[in-house]
């Protein structure tokens, strides 16, 4: 039965996260970007919402509500409406927790998930991306080989959020190069494991609030039971799909924020005797922003809905992110354009959204629903 109406429960979550984004996330976004850091109390306030513990089964210490990719997309969008970097930071524990929740062995769930149900923000992360021009998430160069009772990991990762503070890393590596998604597995690496080297903090065009690090794995050994999903391994393609859904939803949030901000500005900014919004060139730019933003949202929902039905959504998630990458770049560009010179100054958030928006096409991982 076709419907574009979130459930009542989802509606309540949306309202809550929307308020949080408006009251807490947006007002702090610029400072965090300039300071290149997120104060712990912001993360703590997010943690109080209980969004992550919500999805964790009661026997692992959570509230035991069903985890849903659609709900995750709704949350991703609303948080990113506040700020993309803070949204990524706040949801970063899910990078580790959700794959365990979905694909972990019973032992892995019991061992790791309770840590995400505590009172304080749990720093955990995953490492997927690698610093090369032609990086493709289904073609990672990091390798895992089995040696007796251990897996030995080698490789170089980039864009690992909170690598400096994370207790747990989910590292994606291939058993053999060129085997595509089926050959990629996740390995749980605990902080302090020998061979896990957290490198320098990285500097990017945007997302400066989010601490991103290089991480090297040099003959890093983990026990066999640390492979995500145990002997059967994980469904890496699904993890990638869930990540692309989250990115698309977050892109929707950024675009929606840009559209709203630019529209309000255009109504207030008077030039040649009239608000610039009364000129077709500006008004139609805003109309296009609205159209593409809505389309992006529904593409995320559609892929998420398939994911929740446990149907293959590789195509839908890929196309959604393809769409989001292109249009998020265009929309955030136009956000600056509507504000003109003022949009180029760091006082207005469109300047930040322009820079953040350019990461969407490029980055995979870093978020999951």
């Amino acid at each position, binding site marked *: 039965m076709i*419907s574009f*109406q979130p*459930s*009542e429960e989802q509606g309540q979550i949306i309202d809550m996260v929307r308020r949080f984004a408006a009251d807490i996330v947006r007002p702090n976004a610029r400072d965090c970007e300039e300071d290149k850091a997120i104060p712990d109390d912001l993360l703590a306030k997010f943690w109080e919402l209980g969004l992550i513990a919500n999805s964790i089964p009661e026997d692992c210490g959570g509230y035991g509500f069903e985890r849903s990719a659609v709900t995750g997309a709704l949350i991703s969008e609303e948080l990113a409406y506040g700020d993309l970097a803070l949204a990524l930071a706040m949801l970063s524990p899910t990078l580790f927790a959700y794959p365990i929740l979905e694909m972990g062995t019973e032992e892995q769930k019991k061992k790791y998930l309770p840590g995400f149900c505590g009172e304080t923000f749990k720093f955990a992360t995953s490492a997927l991306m690698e610093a090369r021009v032609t990086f493709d998430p289904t073609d990672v160069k990091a390798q895992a080989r089995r040696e007796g009772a251990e897996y030995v990991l080698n490789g170089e990762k980039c864009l690992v959020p909170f690598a400096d503070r994370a207790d747990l890393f989910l590292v994606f590596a291939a058993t053999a190069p060129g085997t595509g998604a089926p050959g990629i597995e996740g390995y749980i690496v605990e902080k302090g494991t020998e061979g896990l080297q957290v490198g320098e903090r990285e500097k990017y065009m945007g997302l400066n609030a989010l601490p991103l690090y290089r991480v090297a794995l040099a003959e890093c050994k983990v026990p066999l039971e640390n492979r995500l999903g145990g002997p059967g391994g994980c469904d890496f393609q699904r993890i990638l799909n869930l990540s692309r859904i989250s990115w698309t939803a977050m892109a929707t949030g950024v675009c929606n924020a840009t559209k709203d901000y630019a529209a309000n500005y255009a109504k207030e900014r008077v030039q040649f005797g009239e608000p610039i919004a009364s000129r077709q060139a500006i*008004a139609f730019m805003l109309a296009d922003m609205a159209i*593409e933003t809505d389309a992006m949202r529904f593409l995320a929902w559609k892929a998420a809905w398939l994911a929740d039905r446990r149907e293959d959504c590789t195509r*839908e998630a890929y196309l959604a992110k393809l769409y989001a990458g292109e249009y998020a770049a265009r929309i955030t560009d136009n956000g600056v354009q509507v504000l003109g010179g003022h949009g180029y100054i760091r006082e207005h958030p469109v300047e930040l959204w322009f820079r953040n928006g350019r990461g969407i096409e490029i980055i995979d991982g870093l978020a999951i629903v």
Partner: protein
Amino acid sequence: MIDFELPPALKMVKDFAHGVARDTFRPIARKYDEEEHTTAEEIAFMGPIMAQRSSERRKKPKKDADEPKKPRAETEDRIGAIMSTVVGSEEFSWGDAGLLLAIPGNGLGNAAIAAVATPEQEERFAGKFAAMAITEPGSGSDSGSISTTAVLDGDEWVINGEKIFVTDGKQCDIVVVWATVDKSAGKAGIKSFVVEKDRPGVTVTKLEHKMGIRASDTASIVFEDVRIPKDNILGSPEVKTKTEGFKGVMKTFDNTRPIVGSMALGIARAALEFTKEKLEEEGFQFRYGLNKCRLGAIEREVLVMESELEAMRLLIWRAAWMGDNGRANAMEASMSKAKAGRMGSEITRRCVALLGPMGYSREWLVEKWARDCKINDIYEGTQQIQQLVVARNLLGYSRAQLK
């Protein structure tokens, strides 16, 4: 709850329409493109089927569009006539959009009657093929400036004026004519009237030679002292101080625009599917999930177009779902048509180019689809009109604030 599954009834609509599109429309699509202004007898059988459909629909209790909007959580989703029509139109248009427009009883006038007619009128005009006559030589997008008049004379309206671009104007039985009952009242004076084609004074003066959708005729009709019964007016004859009457007339568009969008979608999907098929025969692959570094140029182009097709469909479905659920959807209807009209043209043109000399040739249908699809960015409000509607709604601006 967010859901994208077609309910069984809609799957049936879809399968039926697809079957007709594949088995009946496609095989004769080229023929009626070449033989413009010839009536396609092969699709006459569709008339009774359409009539039965709408009679079945009439029997169902109607939801009042003006009932107060319920709070979100209480709304019960319903799949109604609009969703059913957009799903069907996509499939029919996949077969041939010109033939879809030429299905007897499937005119835009029928949609207008269905939207605003009284039960008595619905009954009286049931089974008639109704065209819609809005545009005049001097008024295109500016529907408010029409000059065709309707004057009440005793128990009859007397209609005078000239209408152009009347889709199915030749083939139809009746015409829904927009006319003003009080020129001084501006838009408030505009009403719509059902005029039977066989009334004295109704003359089809011209059939247009068009770039595409040539299976459906587009006529100019002159109305000269045409007398129709008083109760052939759709809606209230009263001229209100504000523009409510006109808004009522315009409201038809909220339902027809997603349908036009779905026609663009169906044509573009036909083109893209065909193009992929032909390219696959040449050994090209289309893989989902790879970084663009690893894609071929045309592989990537096709994937981008697929994402656009999905986006078109979802925007159309949203507008239709809102309409069926009694929500105000003027903005969303225009969003769906703006997107679909533009991207439909874009996708079909790219498919022509992707197939090289064969794409440009009239041996295949791709070039025809590019011609057919363009109309969807023009009629029922051009791209620019849709953008105006979207922007005004978005900004909360009146017509005066955003011209």
